[in-house]
């Protein structure tokens, strides 16, 4: 292990240690919020000449996964000077500085997946993590939340930030999803990535392919081996699936998925009943024919 890596790990451990020791960072004490909690705060980026929103919601920050960090844990300490020095506009932050692949994080794997995806192919290096994920209010939902509907809503909001805007994408989501029966229900029940990302490993897939590679075959989800078990429901306990005899019972949390929601006991019971009915009819028919011949 290089000294640089050791130093990074120690820094992360120290941050975690102090965060645990002293609890959540009090946003009221972060002086950055003196300005950045103003939702009208913007600037014109000197490089791109675009207006950039500089607002950070203290409430959302308090609930984010990074709530235990102070601003300068990620941003340069020079930002403590206000107004900020001009050259800080070029500051580049990479999630990989803290989140290299290890026991907990798999960001290098994620980065590799992103680079195979359609967004990276179209936008190149401009497609950073921050295009979709705002680290100031990001929280992990699929892995920890039992509320699938909220997870779906939250995760889809990343995509919708760009894709609901017809001018940006040039395509109307309603039109291109016209093939989907009850599309609103689908959108509320599954995440965009459940159909648009290719499954690879156990992490939430970030390999979002071109629209041609998206799932269009109903039985990929509507079947006993539903792909939803590897995507949206991947982090639910496997034990939960066995409760009440429901095969894929984990899906029952919020939904009934035709073809995927099945019950072992119902299956067995129905086969027995069907067999008894056919057997009863066959025996009856046999005796009818036999008695008619004898008469």
């Amino acid at each position, binding site marked *: 292990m290089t000294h640089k890596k050791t130093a990074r790990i120690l820094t992360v451990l120290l941050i975690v240690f102090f965060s645990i020791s002293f609890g959540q960072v009090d946003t009221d004490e972060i002086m950055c919020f003196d300005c950045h909690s103003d939702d009208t705060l913007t600037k014109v980026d000197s490089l791109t000449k675009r207006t950039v929103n500089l607002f950070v919601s203290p409430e959302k920050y308090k609930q984010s996964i990074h709530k235990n960090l102070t601003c300068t844990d990620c941003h340069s300490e020079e930002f403590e000077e206000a107004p900020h020095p001009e050259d800080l506009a070029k500051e580049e932050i990479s999630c990989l500085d803290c989140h290299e692949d290890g026991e907990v994080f798999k960001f290098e794997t994620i980065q590799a997946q992103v680079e195979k995806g359609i967004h990276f192919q179209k936008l190149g290096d401009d497609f950073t993590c921050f295009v979709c994920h705002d680290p100031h209010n990001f929280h992990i939902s699929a892995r920890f939340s039992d509320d699938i509907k909220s997870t779906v809503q939250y995760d889809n909001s990343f995509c919708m930030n760009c894709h609901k805007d017809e001018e940006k994408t040039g395509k109307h989501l309603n039109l291109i999803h016209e093939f989907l029966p009850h599309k609103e229900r689908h959108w509320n029940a599954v995440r965009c990535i459940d159909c648009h990302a290719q499954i690879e490993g156990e992490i939430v897939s970030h390999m979002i392919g071109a629209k041609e590679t998206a799932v269009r075959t109903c039985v990929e989800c509507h079947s006993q081996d539903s792909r939803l078990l590897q995507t949206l429901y991947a982090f639910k306990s496997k034990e939960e699936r066995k409760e009440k005899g429901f095969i894929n019972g984990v899906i029952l949390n919020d939904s009934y998925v035709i073809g995927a*929601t099945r019950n072992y006991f119902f299956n067995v019971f129905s086969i027995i009943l069907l067999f008894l009915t056919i057997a009863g009819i066959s025996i009856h028919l046999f005796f009818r024919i036999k008695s008619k011949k004898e*008469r």
Partner: protein
Amino acid sequence: MTTIHKEYMYPLWLRIWHIVNGIMFLFLILTGISLQYAGENAILVSYENAIKIHNICGVILALNYAFFVIVNFISGNFRQYLPPIKGLIGNSIKQARYYLWGMFNGEPKPFPTSKEMKFNPLQQIAYFKVMYFILPLSIISGLGLLLPEILIDEFLGESGLFYTAIVHTIVGFFLSLFMLGHIYLGTTGRTMSANFKAILTGYEEHEKED
């Protein structure tokens, strides 16, 4: 000497309703199985086609049932489905005994079909339940699945859609079993095909001693 006497028992409206109902039932069962056991290798019909066919047939069956309810009531045919309470148990036992014993020994039907009494007591009980409770339940739950926005979002911790789908699947299964039994009992007429001919032409043939 035995002669065959024809009696007009099933009016045109009833025959049209029955044949449409039967065909829709068949399609709904086949596509219903395809949906319930959907997978990469479609067992009967592909998922995409099964959904479309099931929806279309379900709507036709529902409209056909509405037609049945109206004409059935106006024509007074609904009385055929009402088993008389008096002697119900005794008559049912008599009929069951015929199915399980008398039929094999050439005994005459205890309740021969006539214009006034088209169904025997067991048929009356079964058809009364199926036509006035089970089939409407299947139609209402199917309508809920077709238009899920009309369903309640949550009840006792589960979605309304879940309960509706479970009811629809169970009811659909029992109606499938009923159809098997119904078709089989159709072969127990004067000849194997006599009852099928009767429900297509409207005329039932009775044997009469001259």
